[in-house]
């Protein structure tokens, strides 16, 4: 199994029942990239408003993704292949003060 820690912050947690930290296990028969993970999150963790999370099969612009505290823009974005015990963080920049 592929063990991941998925965290939501900056307001993104509001789409996930206000739960910030999720421990998940994925069946690793096939390889998992962020692309597949986003769809899995939408189908399994997201509570409502999918358009606030995904847009055109990628993350909605304005939500930042970090893998193990590194900007996913440095890791190949959607095609980054997830490893066991990766920590994936989603931070919304879209929420005001």
């Amino acid at each position: 199994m592929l063990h991941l820690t998925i965290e939501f912050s900056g307001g993104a947690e509001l789409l996930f029942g206000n739960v910030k930290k999720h421990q998940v296990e994925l069946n690793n028969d096939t390889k998992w990239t962020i692309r597949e993970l986003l769809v899995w999150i939408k189908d399994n963790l997201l509570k409502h408003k999918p358009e606030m999370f995904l847009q055109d099969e990628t993350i909605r612009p304005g939500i930042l993704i970090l893998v193990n505290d590194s900007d996913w823009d440095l890791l190949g974005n959607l095609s980054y292949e997830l490893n066991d015990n990766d920590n994936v963080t989603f931070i919304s920049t879209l929420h005001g003060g």
Partner: protein
Amino acid sequence: MPVNCIRCNQNRAILKRPKTGDAMCKECFFFVFEEEIHKTITDAKLFKPGEKIGIGASGGKDSTVLAYVLKTLNERYNYGVELVLLSVDEGITGYRDDSLESVKRNQIEYNLPLKVITYEELYGWTMDEIVKKVGRKNNCTFCGVFRRQALDRGGLILGVNKLVTGHNADDIAETIFMNILRGDIGRLQRCTSITTGNEGAIPRCKPFKYTYEKEIVMYAYFKKLDYFSTECVYSPNAYRGNARMFIKDLEAIRARSIIDIIHSGEKLAVKKDAKLPIQGTCERCGYISSMNLCKACNLLEGLNKGLPKLGIGKTDRLRKQYNLSPAYSLNSSMANLSLKSSQLSLNSEKDCNCDCGENSEKSCSNQAKNSNNQLNNKLETIVDLNF
């Protein structure tokens, strides 16, 4: 494949900078982030030694990072300014009360004085009460107009020389775009200035003018700064929301777009024959305004008289219909009429003994009160239908 930092070439990069595309490690990112803001501050000569600077603090990411960075830079570079936090409490239960808690935590952590100014003390109305009256359609107009004045009035009470706000590069690009869409040339011209309001009100500066939202959020994340993030419980401003998503879409395709829009906005020249609104002062409260009555006084009069649509869009007809003094642009010929500049504070609206919401200087009879009440009842029915 781990990427190394372009600056120190030693540590693993943690961030791709949107403005430049550079990969940077945490320490180098902190350094360049702070240095760029320092450069913005010194290039524009924002602060002078001895000045008192009010930081508009909402408890959100931008103002939290602003307070932290200004405190850091003030100590590092001896700006010699006195920093104070200024928060506006609009009176929105479940939103502002929570975010103010985060400001209060920052106040303790950064050891800065804090002043909270409320809509209730300034205007006699909380946003919760206003929404009950006006519904959920134009409430953001009230809130935006009232907030702008509230910061100035709070600044006056604190005796600050300048106010700084956390408006970032994304916000400014969004505002330029919105002003183009609305054909608002006056604001289009003003919105790119790093300092505004030199003409009388307390000058307002935006030290984050060139700072990307992504970097502000990343900075807060890596510094583990404590900020509050949630949507306002009342409906968000849909028009701004669209502009915002458009800017974010552009950024996703080409991150430099944001800084390029600001550059375009700064270099735009307004034709000489373009008619710009004349900036004067409100005859009722003395606040800067391009009308004889400022927007806040207009809205407030509407609230107090049970005419919540007053001040929203064109309201000449409504004013005439209910025999209210006319509101007009200072550009118009009526500006030549002699005006009584009463320079009253907003609170004096409440001075009237009969509690009709009328200004004490104006005639107020019980007769007027009764007709007002009848009016209120009628209008509430109309308003309910409209919203």
